[in-house]
């Protein structure tokens, strides 16, 4: 008998398109019952690659798989009044609805906040939109790259005078998803006291801007635009260096004495032996020169040897690795980060990235593989809404489900 997840008993309707699907997944991973409502032709995320064996198909999208693990799928045409009525019926017994339609769409479907709140006062509605529900840009169109741009996340990567480098891996979306899940939990905790649900208006642009630590701070402190600095971190304590066989990340926040003794024993310390470098502020001021000297020191080192020794001396150095290295990482393996998920209809098992945190009492876990299109439509409508077989057949024939 496995322990129930931390959010067992919570019912979430996930109406989001491909931009905001991680939000409900974070709740599903912790045991919430998440019903993904997708159009009868399948969610737009199913058309986004990469695909299993590079064969595009709506049940083979790895993009869809990642964001929809642990959810159930119900197909429903929300633009049809019968589909809207079914969604409303489900919302009556749900705790949370999460949506990412263009602003105003939910109202047109008859599922706006006023309706939902009237029908189920305890319901929490989380609306995730590129620029939020209000303001002059509320109807603007955006993808992750546009949001990274508008949130200030894109400008600061790369080198001065060159084209900025785009952040990796849709992090404007992911920051928004985390803030969405946080907001939902806050509204649920507030509901314990008030018994009332709330409407959450989340701006992905704001979530992106909030996920850049130093840009706003730099402006409010110095009224300047933080520039691009190549691989020199804005704090000036980290820079990429190159060993004989690969890149590493230098860090000058560890114990300086032991680092400089080591560099000295290799005969490469140069003027870094000067006592001023023992002060953090001096290392901050001299960062460019300091890292130039350290680059010259590491350039003939085999990378693994350098990193191993650095960590023994508690110097926060690290290899600059490709993501493939995560699969061979002994630490991740020991903690069971990657999990096997069985896809019985394919007769195969796949390794998924796993938990971002290990809960001692109520574990993160995989309870079901990502759903096939409409896999749970029948059982949800029959078992939970007590719909008659004829009614289901009629809705299916008319492509509402």
């Amino acid at each position: 008998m496995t322990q129930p997840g931390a959010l067992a008993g919570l019912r979430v309707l996930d109406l989001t398109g491909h931009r905001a699907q991680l939000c409900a997944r974070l709740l599903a991973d912790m045991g919430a019952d998440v019903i993904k409502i997708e159009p009868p032709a399948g969610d737009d995320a199913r058309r986004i690659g990469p695909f299993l064996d590079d064969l595009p198909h709506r049940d083979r999208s790895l993009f869809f798989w990642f964001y929809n693990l642990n959810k159930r799928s119900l197909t429903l045409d929300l633009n049809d009044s019968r589909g809207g009525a079914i969604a409303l019926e489900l919302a009556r017994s749900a705790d949370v609805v999460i949506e990412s339609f263009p602003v105003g769409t939910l109202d047109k479907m008859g599922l706006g906040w006023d309706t939902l709140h009237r029908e189920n006062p305890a319901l929490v509605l989380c609306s995730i939109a590129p620029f939020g529900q209000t303001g002059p840009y509320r109807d603007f169109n955006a993808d992750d790259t546009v949001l990274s741009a508008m949130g200030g996340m894109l400008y600061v990567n790369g080198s001065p005078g060159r084209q900025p480098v785009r952040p990796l891996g849709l992090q404007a979306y992911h920051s928004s998803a985390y803030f969405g899940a946080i907001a939902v939990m806050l509204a649920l905790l507030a509901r314990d006291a008030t018994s009332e649900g709330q409407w959450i208006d989340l701006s992905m642009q704001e979530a992106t801007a909030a996920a850049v630590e130093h840009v706003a701070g730099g402006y409010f402190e110095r009224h300047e635009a933080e520039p691009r600095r190549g691989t020199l971190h804005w704090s000036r304590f980290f820079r990429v260096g190159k060993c004989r066989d690969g890149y590493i990340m230098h860090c000058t926040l560890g114990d300086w004495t032991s680092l400089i003794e080591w560099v000295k024993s290799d005969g490469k310390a140069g003027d870094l032996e000067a006592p001023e470098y023992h002060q953090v502020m001096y290392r901050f001021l001299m960062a460019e020169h300091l890292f130039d000297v350290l680059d010259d020191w590491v350039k003939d080192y085999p990378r693994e040897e350098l990193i191993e020794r650095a960590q023994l001396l508690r110097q926060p150095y690290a290899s600059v690795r490709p993501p493939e290295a995560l699969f061979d990482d002994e630490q991740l393996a020991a903690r069971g980060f990657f999990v096997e998920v069985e896809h019985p209809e394919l007769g195969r098992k796949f390794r998924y990235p796993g938990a971002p945190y290990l809960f001692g009492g109520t574990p993160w876990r995989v309870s079901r593989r990502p759903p096939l299109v409409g896999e749970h439509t029948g059982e949800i409508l029959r078992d939970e809404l007590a719909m008659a077989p004829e009614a289901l057949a009629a809705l299916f024939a008319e492509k509402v489900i």
Partner: protein
Amino acid sequence: MATAAMPLDGVRILDFTWVVAGPVATRILADHGAEVVKVERKVPPPLGNRKLGLQCDLHRDKLSVALNMQHPRGIELARAIAAKSDVVMDNFSARVMRSWGMDYESLCAVKPDIICISMSGLGHTGPLSSYVSYGPTLQALTGYTLLMAEPDGTPAGYGYSYADMCGGYTGALAALVALWNRRRTGRGQFVDLSQLEAVASVIGPALLDISVNGRTQSPPGYASGEGPAAPHGVYKCRALKGDEGSADDDRWIAIVVRGGSEWRRFVTTIGSPSWASDPGFRTLYLRMRNSAALDANVSRWTAAQSAEDAMITLQRAGIAAGVVQNGIDICARDPQLRERGFWPTVSTTKGATTQVTGIPFKLSGVSGDVRTIAPEVGENTDYVLGELLGLGRAERESLIAAGAVWP
């Protein structure tokens, strides 16, 4: 009523976190009404002015008490605060809290339903649990640094510590989920959060591509990560005032054009230039294959526009486009962020005000708010020892004299 209720009214967090990731987590909880008691050293690491900018953003809405954790009575005080807290958060490796008798098992003795969240770099278990790391080195280990490459392949990483922000959000979510569960079961628990795992979990589709398809990931540049699009990239625009080399001359716009009608609308919007009817750009597939030539043509159009004008023009036609905004843009120029009040103003001690980063969501009823600027180290010692622990003045002075508490 004195103050409106907030979602986390009545929740107390004992906060041992420092640097960035941990403080981001507890700041989110503090913004929403939790009483966050930050334990720190008399002389914290020199990370900058607490009353402005990043450091204010990290520590606002919190209380600060300076306890000497090398002193047995300092540890005693910390355990006494823990006994009155709901959640204890730290971002140390496993040994630190254990050495103080502040690990989950020990704290259960003083508060059976305590929630402990430890946000260490690589987690509390496993052969590398004592690995020393910071946000930038975790990004390096995960692939962000390498795959965010310049066109010539040089790793350009993040210019900041996204890993710290990501770890912070994960930590805040963990605390909220554990609190929700405790209200229903009466049980607390220990959460072992590895920041490496937190930041690795958000490159999911790429990791699946590796494990499922066996494909080695190469730097994606500006290729769309969410379905085919071309143009898809950033394009240089006209300088703001023409100062060469300044931020005003570093203007770019991100443009995304998908298939079908979007391309036709895009072409019409930029004035139907003759290159757009080149057979090499006829289909989405061809536009992606010939993206270098396409991008060069688009750049000729953007070079004559201001980034703002180009964005408005394209958005009116329903094309996803956005200025590559710098710090001045987002904090002072962007009318959207201004109208939504994303940069709230808070009072500083001397009656002046400063702006801080807001909360990226609004709750329609019981919501959070940025209320107070970050405290100085030990600013709230009187409150914590007096009101919270009920120690009289004489006792407090003896603790200070003994060196267990810094005034």
